[in-house]
């Protein structure tokens, strides 16, 4: 596989970085010529994954969050969000709609939204080691581009 363009970012798990992560992802994805709707989907999925790392991964500290975006063959955008936080004991259960450990400020819909806005969603997690969320989306190639 040929190496296409990519970016890697790291920032502390502070909520002020949520908007930045969305904007950075949208700016990177712009070179794939996405529609407004595709761009909205990407921003939504990034917001969910990054917010999870900020809200859930580090209960008592402010740890690092890494975000990588990569363009794969076939005009596919791959997004990875990784933290080194407390991890998820039961990933399957955590991904069920409405499941949340976050109280009433959360709706438990984050993973459901990531899954429905992206074509691929994979979550790997280990307790006290951290969580890696990998998502992918094929950006439709426009005619006469």
């Amino acid at each position, binding site marked *: 596989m040929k190496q296409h363009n990519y970016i890697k970012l790291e920032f502390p798990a502070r*909520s*002020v970085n*949520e*908007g930045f992560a*969305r904007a950075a992802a949208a700016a990177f994805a712009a070179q794939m010529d996405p529609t*407004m*709707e595709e761009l*909205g*989907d990407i*921003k*939504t999925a990034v*917001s*969910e994954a990054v*917010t999870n790392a*900020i*809200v859930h991964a580090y209960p008592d500290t402010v740890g690092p969050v890494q975000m990588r975006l990569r363009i794969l063959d076939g005009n596919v955008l791959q997004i990875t969000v990784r933290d080194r936080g407390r991890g998820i004991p039961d990933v399957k259960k955590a991904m069920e*709609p409405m499941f949340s450990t976050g109280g*009433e*400020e*959360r*709706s438990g*819909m*984050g993973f*459901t*939204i990531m899954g*429905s*806005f992206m074509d691929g969603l994979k979550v790997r997690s280990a307790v006290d080691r951290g969580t890696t969320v990998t998502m992918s989306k094929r950006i439709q190639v426009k005619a006469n581009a």
Partner: protein
Amino acid sequence: MKVTSGYQDGKLTLYLQGELDHHEASAALRRIGRTLDDYLPQDCVIDMDGLTFMDSSGIALILKISRLMEETGGRAWVANAKNQPLKVIDASGIDRMIKISTAAKQ
């Protein structure tokens, strides 16, 4: 994210503007909670015409406003949902719990 409001005949309208995410949600909820306490409206309309982005934090905010309204015997609904925020609302399935009216197609 900006919230402004208008009150008339027992109906409070909250106009959400900009991007609603986790970073913005708690301050927005505090402001909205104070506004609800001030007016004790019968109906609360969450107007999304000016909202350009929302994630699941917005879903939690809508549900919270709805619960606050029910506590005082009132009700809340969403008006003028469109584009990305509407897609998030649709994916979340909250239209089974709260009325969502969408913006007229331009």
